[in-house]
């Protein structure tokens, strides 16, 4: 099978590289894509500094993001062939050794624009604008507090994401990579008075850092082997051009070349929340809902997919790399789906579904349908945004209530219709209901999996699809359908779940900023214009994205991610896959309908029965506790390391400092101490010492010197 993939690859990306070789200089106004979020960031900062308590920061951000979307559209319109747009110098080191060998390390702020870039940028800035608009209403209660801070964070994110996608070299990509991580840290920790949010932000950054390290190592290895970090440039010395030219020897680098795809993979796993680094994403739901929608569902987490798609030629450097990606993706999809099934918090369910869908995308990359992966990214961005935003709307309206057991019959409540129905569309897409956007994109991946003869993976994914359909509609049937009943959340406005996993909670007094105000809302307030508008627009986008398959394929196949693969033309795809997938989706929905709408009690009964049986008790327990992965990490990695660190600190203090350093420092003291008895105050003993000293001197000069002299002369070379 691997051989087959290899074969199909051989000519695959060469076409793209040919395109890359003829890279032209692009328009410099494209730089505004970066400058606008930056300006927005600065202006938001100014607003914060001037303590402007209006919605001004939101309008600044929305405006600048909208303009930058327009710029992207303009760029898209004027696109003919891959473009190179230099903006600024960043790293520019040149040297020449004494024997004339020259070298350089060049990585500037510059754009490399091909169709993949445009595809990504379109939905990133488009969704970014919309979600910022949504947030302008959603964050309303914070106008007097962190409003400007929030929108500055959104601006930072858009800036970094644009860097990531538009970069023409890996270092700038790395800047964007870490930048989105930082923006994510910023926004997850937005409610900084909550220890759980702070912990989640920290966790996100650190786990991401592990992935970043993989990426960094990959970048260094690429530079180490190929001497460049640029994708392509006019001189033809870019990475893709080198790879395409065949001027490098595949086997020359040995492990240092073959390790590259695995390291890049690690980076992608970190950013896109795959096993083993997915644990940060569910916790990241501590952030405000628009952030979850934008960063942790639609855009940032797809950066890993982008990286692998972009670096597809590099991923070929080891034959086992892509299969690994596929398997990891598949396992992640399954694991996250099983966890998602057992959660009660809407946002957490969506978070796990995101992890699961990202797994699908990685499978797509892994089985070499970058088109399928990108298509799924594209559709997923829309429907997952819808899902999060509806969830956010619920949370907003029900004072932070997100427990699916405590809200019911949303669609019957006044003012909630748009929310309920847009959520249904999202759910259908996510569940892969036949003819929905998710159905097509997921099917593309599934079919390819079977096409490359990975049936086990395929059936695993199909099973995952079943679970997906189930848990998706579990939410919808619970929340939107059924009799009307609700319980308000504890907060005046919703900010994620309230069951903090509060070991970090230090028992402080009520945080001053989030103390419940006098008028706790007892009535849900339905979303107003901005939220509804955005929901509708994105839902329309989600529906339209159903038909975007060929458009996405066009984008993908004219980029470095292109796989000139016969399978893309559906000929090798087994025809039964879409039927089976569709059936499975419907089956999942039916099961969900049974347990969560028709007879809601039976779900609890089933759970109780499983718990009662000691043989099956582990299943719901482990699923509800997320398979104890966090605990596993805590006990297997963090705690030992922490103990080790303590041991090191003790070692530092007592062994190095006390024993060695102070010990050496005490040597003179001890020596002095040992001579201390001589200082006994008795005159004659001093005289004895003096006589002894004179005697020694005589001994040295008269007796020993004649013998020492030749040796000394030898040592000091004639005693100049």
């Amino acid at each position, binding site marked *: 099978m691997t051989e087959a993939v290899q074969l199909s690859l051989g000519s695959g990306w060469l076409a793209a590289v040919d395109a890359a070789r003829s890279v032209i200089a692009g328009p410099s106004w494209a730089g505004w894509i970066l400058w606008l979020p930056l300006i927005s960031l600065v202006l938001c900062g100014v607003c914060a500094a001037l303590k402007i308590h209006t919605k001004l920061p939101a309008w600044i951000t929305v405006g600048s993001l909208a303009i930058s979307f327009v710029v992207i559209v303009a760029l898209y319109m004027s696109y003919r062939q891959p473009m190179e747009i230099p903006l600024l110098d960043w790293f520019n080191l040149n040297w020449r050794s004494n024997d004339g060998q020259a070298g350089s390390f060049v990585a500037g702020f510059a754009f490399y624009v091909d169709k993949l870039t445009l595809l990504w940028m379109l939905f990133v800035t488009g969704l970014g604008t919309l979600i910022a608009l949504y947030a302008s209403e959603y964050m309303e209660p914070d106008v007097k507090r962190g409003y400007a801070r929030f929108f500055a964070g959104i601006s930072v994110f858009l800036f970094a994401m644009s860097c990531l996608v538009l970069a023409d070299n890996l270092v700038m990509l790395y800047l964007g990579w870490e930048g989105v991580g930082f923006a994510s840290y910023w926004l997850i920790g937005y409610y900084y008075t909550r220890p759980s949010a702070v912990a989640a932000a920290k966790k996100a950054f650190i786990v991401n850092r592990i992935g970043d390290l993989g990426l960094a190592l990959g970048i260094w290895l690429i530079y180490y082997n190929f001497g460049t970090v640029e994708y392509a440039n006019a001189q033809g010395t870019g990475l893709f051009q080198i790879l395409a030219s065949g001027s490098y020897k595949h086997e020359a680098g040995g492990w240092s070349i073959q390790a590259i795809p695995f390291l890049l993979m690690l980076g992608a796993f970190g950013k896109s929340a795959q096993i083993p680094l997915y644990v940060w994403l569910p916790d990241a739901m501590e952030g405000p809902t628009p952030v979850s929608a934008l960063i942790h569902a639609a855009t940032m987490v797809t950066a890993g997919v982008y990286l692998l798609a972009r670096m597809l030629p590099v991923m070929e450097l080891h034959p086992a790399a892509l299969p690994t990606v596929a398997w990891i993706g598949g396992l992640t999809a399954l694991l996250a789906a099983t966890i998602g099934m057992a959660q009660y918090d809407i946002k957490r369910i969506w978070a796990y579904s995101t992890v699961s869908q990202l797994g699908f995308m990685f499978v797509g990359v892994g089985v070499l349908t970058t088109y399928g992966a990108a298509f799924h990214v594209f559709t997923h961005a829309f429907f997952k945004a819808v899902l999060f935003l509806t969830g956010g709307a619920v949370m907003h309206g029900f004072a932070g209530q997100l427990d699916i057991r405590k809200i019911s019959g949303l669609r019957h409540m006044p003012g909630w219709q748009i929310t309920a129905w847009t959520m249904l569309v999202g759910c259908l897409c996510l569940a892969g209901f036949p003819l929905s956007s998710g159905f097509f994109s997921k099917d593309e991946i599934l079919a390819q999996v079977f096409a490359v003869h990975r049936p086990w993976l395929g059936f695993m994914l199909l099973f995952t699809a079943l679970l997906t359909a189930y848990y998706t509609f579990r939410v919808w049937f619970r929340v939107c359908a059924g009799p009307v009943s609700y319980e308000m959340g504890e907060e005046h406005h919703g900010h994620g779940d309230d069951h903090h996993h509060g070991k970090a909670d230090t028992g402080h007094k009520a945080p001053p900023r989030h103390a419940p105000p006098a008028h706790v809302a007892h009535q849900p307030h339905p979303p107003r214009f901005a939220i509804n508008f955005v929901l509708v627009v994105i839902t329309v986008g989600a529906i339209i994205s159903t038909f975007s398959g060929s458009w996405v394929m066009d984008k993908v196949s004219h980029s470095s991610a292109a796989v000139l693969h016969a399978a893309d033309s559906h000929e090798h795809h087994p025809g039964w896959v879409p039927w089976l997938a569709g059936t499975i989706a419907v089956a999942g929905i039916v099961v969900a309908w049974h347990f969560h709408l028709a007879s809601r009690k039976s779900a609890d009964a089933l759970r109780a029965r499983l718990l009662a049986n000691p043989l099956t008790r582990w299943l719901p327990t482990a699923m509800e506790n997320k398979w104890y992965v966090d605990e596993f990490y805590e006990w297997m990695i963090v705690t030992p390391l922490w103990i080790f660190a303590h041991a090191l600190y003790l070692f530092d203090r007592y062994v190095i400092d006390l024993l060695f350093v102070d010990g050496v420092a005490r040597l003179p003291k001890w020596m002095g101490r040992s001579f*201390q008895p001589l200082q006994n105050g008795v*005159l004659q003993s001093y*005289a004895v010492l003096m006589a002894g000293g004179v005697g020694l001197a005589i001994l040295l000069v008269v007796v020993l010197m004649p013998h020492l002299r030749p040796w000394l002369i030898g040592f000091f070379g004639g005693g100049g």
Partner: protein
Amino acid sequence: MNWAADSCAFFAAVQPLGQLALSHYLITSAALFAIGLIGFLSRRNMIIMFLCTELMFQAAAIAMIAFSRFHLDVSGQVFVIFILTVAAAEAALALGLVVLLYRRRETLNADVWSELRETPTP
């Protein structure tokens, strides 16, 4: 001038001191020095101790003069003058100190004065 003339004749006529004679003088000097040292170390009376230092000066002076004679160079004798000077100065100061110390403790025992010692540390 008579004895001076004799002395000059004596000086001029006599050969320089032989090595044997020199060594005899030196051994005498060394013996005196060692005895002075022993005295300084073993006696406890401060005045005797100073006398012993004078004895050691004396020994040094003998060695100086012997070498002066051996080399027929009077510089050695000049040095003895300096030794005398130092001895005189030392006698003046040291004896003054001895008197002072004696008035403090009413004893000439040198062992009494041992305040300038390192207090034993555990």
